[in-house]
């Protein structure tokens, strides 16, 4: 086994995990909301990108932008539909409603895009680099750099801007935020839109690496839950570390044991970790 190669693979896989989990981390940690349509939104973003690429003949970047914008709009629409539940912080109903949204998205995508697998062909995926015997693609490089940049951007947004302080204030006490003159509904819409945009960015980065299917969804983002919990729920820095660590673990586990059981092994790690360190990788 080439250890350096597996480390790089792990870093790429882990960046993907972290990227897919970023929106969820903000949603849960910053706004105390959940979205179980996350996986189907990932799928839909990949298909919108694929459609714009193959049917409208856009180039990959333009198609990706279309997908991200479309998902932003969808995020706003979903949030508006759920606004009563969100403002009253009714988490149980939100779980069910977002789960329902997920199945509706999946059904609509199945009708619109069909049930057969497609390849989301990104030109950067064809570019190969080799440095000191380690191979990676242009897509890999983009995944890692964009993920790091997104995490840095989100961290700055949450911790260094007035808008970020508003989000943290609402996470702590939405009622009190009203007294402070904050339109909580608008902030929830913005956070949900951000979640949708981030999952769309993750989709156009990560989905080109595997065939896409309208029935994919939950399984594609299952690692999000491991990352979010391992990272210490809602902790942006923790989610990045957890994502990268999990990616490296997955790469080595796949190489040494079997790629078929990496998800099971990741959850085993999660359980072990939660037993020993219930607060996750806490950096607060």
């Amino acid at each position: 086994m080439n250890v350096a190669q597996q480390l790089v693979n792990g870093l790429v896989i882990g960046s993907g995990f972290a990227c897919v989990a970023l929106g969820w981390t903000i949603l849960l940690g910053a706004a105390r909301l959940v979205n179980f349509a996350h996986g189907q939104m990932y799928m839909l973003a990949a298909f919108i990108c694929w459609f714009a690429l193959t049917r409208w003949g856009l180039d990959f970047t333009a198609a990706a932008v279309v997908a991200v914008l479309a998902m932003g709009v969808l995020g706003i629409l979903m949030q508006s539909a759920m606004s009563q539940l969100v403002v009253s912080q009714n988490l149980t109903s939100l779980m069910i409603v977002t789960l329902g949204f997920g199945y509706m998205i999946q059904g609509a995508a199945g009708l619109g895009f069909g049930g057969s697998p497609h390849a989301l062909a990104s030109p950067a995926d064809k570019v190969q680099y080799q440095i000191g015997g380690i191979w990676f693609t242009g897509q890999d490089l983009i995944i890692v750099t964009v993920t790091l940049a997104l995490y840095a951007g989100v961290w700055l947004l949450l911790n260094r801007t007035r808008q970020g302080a508003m989000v943290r204030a609402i996470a702590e006490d939405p009622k009190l935020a009203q007294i402070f003159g904050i339109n909580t509904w608008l902030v929830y819409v913005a956070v949900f839109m951000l979640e949708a945009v981030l999952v769309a960015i993750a989709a156009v980065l990560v989905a080109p690496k595997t065939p896409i299917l309208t029935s994919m969804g939950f399984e594609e983002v299952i690692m999000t839950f491991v990352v979010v919990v391992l990272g210490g729920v809602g902790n942006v820095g923790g989610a990045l570390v957890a994502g990268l660590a999990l990616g490296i673990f997955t790469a080595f586990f796949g190489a040494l044991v079997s790629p078929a059981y990496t998800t099971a092994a990741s959850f085993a790690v999660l359980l072990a970790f939660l037993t020993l360190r219930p607060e996750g990788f806490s950096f607060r």
Partner: protein
Amino acid sequence: MNVLDAADLTVRYGGSVALRDATLAVGAGRLVAVAGANGAGKSTLVNACAGWSRGHASIAGDVRLDGRSVARLAAYRRARLGIQCVPEGKNVFGELTVEENFALVPAVPREAGRHVFSREDVLGLFPRLHERRTHKGSALSGGERQMLAIGRALLAGPRILLLDEPSVGLAPRLIFDVLTVVRRLVDDGLAVLLVEQNVSAALDVADELYLIERGRIVGHGDAAAMRQDERIAQAYLGGLAEVEP
């Protein structure tokens, strides 16, 4: 014209009525106190003026700010128009620093009737906050939190300040400081509605007093006149004087 006019305010929590037909007015440069026993409905009354409540409440009646009805506006809109409420209990963000609590305040539009305070003004009133500006709200003492809560309400450019028991849990010396600051603001023309359980303390600083019992306003008058009132002295002042150290 009054800064705040509340007419026939009735508040229900679920089925139970916590406030019935309360009518009250606060003029510019007036410090109006609301006093009454625990559970009488004092907080319910001031929160209803702000259109706010911790739990689910249904509020009926009219609230006018400088003559304009705000009864249909959400709490955050009233706050932006200058009804600045400092609720009792948790009234600052513990996860945010003092600076960040201040930074949440939206820019104050330049319009008549608003009392504009700069950050320097507020830190001048409460110098402790300056030393604590990088500390989280949860790391502040009770008194510092109260200063932060009042300070941020001032930064937001109030037309009227609603203070719900700002002195609760404070040392006597701090109570005096806070009430002195409030009095000074009122003397500069600010309208203040102050909830105070202690009738005697309320009468010391206030211009007017409303007495509230079991959800109803049962008395109202100038502080000076109420001080002389035999019945009030017997029902409120005498009893409280004995409890006080």
